[in-house]
């Protein structure tokens, strides 16, 4: 996981580099919550360009962070989502509340 905080724009960018299952989601959750509490960003962006796998644990993890950002008056976005992750996000209905951008194939 690579974390980058833009002080000027108050944007926290989290590049997830592992497969998001129940095992990984626990670790991601702890780390991201730490970063959000530390920076109190205006916006948190998950970069999914290196996410090759996600199951329902990812949905729980994303909704949890969405709620947290809402609580501090910020927003959450997901970038570079691949086909299979998009399928799961769509099924969960969270695309109605969280904006995403799709991964562009080179």
């Amino acid at each position, binding site marked *: 996981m690579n974390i980058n905080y833009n002080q000027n724009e108050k944007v926290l960018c989290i590049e997830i580099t592992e497969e998001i*299952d*129940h*095992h990984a*989601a*626990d670790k991601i959750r702890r780390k991201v919550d730490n970063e959000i509490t530390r920076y109190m960003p205006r916006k948190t962006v998950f970069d999914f360009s290196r996410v090759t796998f996600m199951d*329902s*644990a990812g949905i*729980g993890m994303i909704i949890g962070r969405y709620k947290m950002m809402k609580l501090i008056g910020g927003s959450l976005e997901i970038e570079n989502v691949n086909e*299979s992750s998009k399928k*799961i996000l769509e099924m969960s209905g969270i695309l109605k509340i969280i904006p995403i951008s799709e991964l562009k194939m080179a």
Partner: protein
Amino acid sequence: MKSIYDNEMKLEFLSKSNNEAFARITVAAFVSQLDPTIEELADIKTAVSEAVTNCIIHGYEDCEGVVKIIGRIFANTIEIEISDTGRGIENVDLARKPLYTTKANLERSGMGFTIMESFMDEVEIESVLGLGTKIKMKKMIKKIPIEEDSLELMSLGGI
């Protein structure tokens, strides 16, 4: 003894969360002999991941047990059986409902069975309280056969 299936495999592992990736990758490797598309393979991996996670966090909760997977191939259909000998499901119909979860505190989304059902062709749940749960899933790998005629036409067209 000769199996009625074209191929069969068995896998047993401890209910540790770091085995979730091991389980889905192993099943994917077994299924790959049917030459699935990337999408079909992703669907199977996700369904296996959901079922195995259920065994670990619901079946065995805080104690450790053994998760068992049986994979069977018959023609172009893969059948996957994932079972635990944990606590069992109290109400299977309720558990199948989208967004239903008994573990909201763990940020579980309640989408596990919904994902299994929409990614696989068939999902059966057998569960006995105190004895365990068995999930049986099937998926047909829809290979599009290239007929010899069309191959011939293609080569003719190329000349």
